[in-house]
């Protein structure tokens, strides 16, 4: 019985590594071949500034998601562990989150694109951000990446947070709730404080699920970003080079994270359930 389980785990692990490898190849290709079509520095093609626009995107997306996920986890801990179930704030937030996380992620992408295109005029009038002059026909977008001084950056940040947080909060709450009450009771009855129970029992047991939830949320966000970029390539640009690189990068990132998160659940979280 145990032997069969070990073999299964082993095989699953190998399959996952192979899948991750397959995902990794296009990413590597993109990073290798990335021509700096979307920067002005295209003339000086050193390896560093060939990579920099893509890494800049990735860096922005990862750091935003990381912050959003951390904040989401903190929210979930507060809701689940500190507020009683009858608290009206908790009920309100949980209901809103249930609605938000039920919305298919493409709507967030379209929302973001919509806000960007339709508010461009207002943004230009206010003069807060340096909005490209010829934004209406879309050609200016070729120059825009996730530079942190463009409106794209701020809108992307907001929408990423809006997409990542509800799913993170939901999965983290479920993970904390999945730690069986007898375990908590046992620790409390031995005199442990709330924080000791969390740190020594609840967090170690729920950690895999929390991590998997964060990865899943980020995977959804990346996939939607890739989709929007895909639509953009198809609709607006005449020179798809730089954008298709980004498309591949985001899409493979999404695939990587989703495989990673389901592997975590399959291999480790279900194993800890047996002892829960």
């Amino acid at each position, binding site marked *: 019985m145990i032997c069969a389980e070990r073999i299964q785990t082993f095989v699953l692990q190998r399959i996952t590594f192979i899948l991750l490898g397959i995902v990794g190849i296009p990413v590597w290709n993109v990073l290798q071949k990335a021509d700096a079509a979307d920067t002005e520095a295209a003339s000086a093609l050193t390896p560093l500034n060939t990579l920099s626009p893509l890494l800049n995107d990735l860096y922005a997306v990862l750091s935003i998601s990381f912050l959003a996920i951390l904040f989401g986890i903190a929210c979930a801990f507060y809701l689940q562990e500190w507020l*009683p179930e009858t608290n009206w704030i908790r009920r309100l937030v949980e209901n809103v989150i249930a609605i938000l996380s039920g919305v298919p992620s493409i709507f967030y992408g379209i929302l973001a694109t919509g806000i960007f295109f339709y508010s461009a005029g207002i943004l230009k009038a206010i003069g807060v951000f340096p909005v490209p002059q010829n934004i209406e026909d879309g050609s200016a977008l070729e120059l825009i990446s996730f530079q942190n001084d463009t409106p794209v950056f701020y809108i992307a940040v907001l929408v990423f947070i809006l997409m990542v947080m509800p799913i993170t909060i939901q999965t983290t709450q479920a993970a904390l709730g999945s730690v069986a009450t*007898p*375990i908590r*009771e*046992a*620790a*409390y*009855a*031995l*005199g*442990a*404080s709330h924080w*000791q129970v969390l740190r*020594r*029992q609840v967090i170690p*047991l729920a950690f895999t699920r929390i991590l998997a939830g964060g990865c899943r949320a980020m995977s959804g966000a990346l996939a939607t970003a890739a989709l929007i970029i895909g639509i953009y390539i198809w609709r607006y640009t005449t020179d798809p080079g730089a954008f298709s690189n980004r498309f591949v990068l985001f899409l493979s990132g999404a695939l990587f994270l989703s495989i990673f998160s389901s592997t975590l659940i399959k291999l480790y979280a279900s194993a*800890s359930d047996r*002892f*829960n």
Partner: protein
Amino acid sequence: MNLQTMPMNYSIEAENLNLWYGDFQALIDVNVNIPHGQITSLIGPSGCGKSTLLRCFNRVNERYGNVTTEGKIEVLGKNIYDADVSLHELRKAVGMVFQRPNPLPISVYENILFGLRIHSPVRSITRTDADQIVEEALKSVFLWTDLKDKLKARATSLQLEQQQKLCIARLLPLKPKIILMDEPCSALDAKGTRAVEELMEVLAGTYTFIIVTHNMAQARRVSKECIFMFLGELIEHRETQVLFTDPQHEKTSDYVHMRYG
């Protein structure tokens, strides 16, 4: 009787204890004195408040929220509802064993040290001390010969009987004075029940045991004194043999003779 020496003979003294869960009154004017160093059993039909009373003694029921308590409980001469009482110290002195064995999902070794680790500064327990503590705790619950080669095994992988004994062993390094047991044998078979009962009898001199049980034969076998509760009230508290053979109260008599549904 000399009243001056009274507090020394009792581990727990509850006076006019009333408890509400929201609007529902679960304990009504309970007055009880539990003698030191012996086994006292709590019997009564389901929902009569015996588990609630037990959980008052280490204030573990407060976690559920919506609980109001009135009255006084003195554990080892100290009112546990005083503002200066530390729940840490109270629960260290009053250990608890639950209905379903609930070892923590870590190794046997770490289970026994868990209580000690949360009550002492980080890294203050040396390896040799720890080994000795684990050995002593397991020896006193007669698990050492079975488990000495399995100390690193997950506690949740043991047999139920061993798990329940481990839950008792886990309390011992904290040197509690009182051990509360909430139907400790209801998840065990006859052999397991017998083993846990024998263990209680051996440990009874050192610790005060309070056991909630639905099994009247068990109450009769293990306990010296017996408390019968009904709908939140304490009906009768007498020596076990007397309570079973010559109950004063009609409800007690109905219950112990199984005329009560």
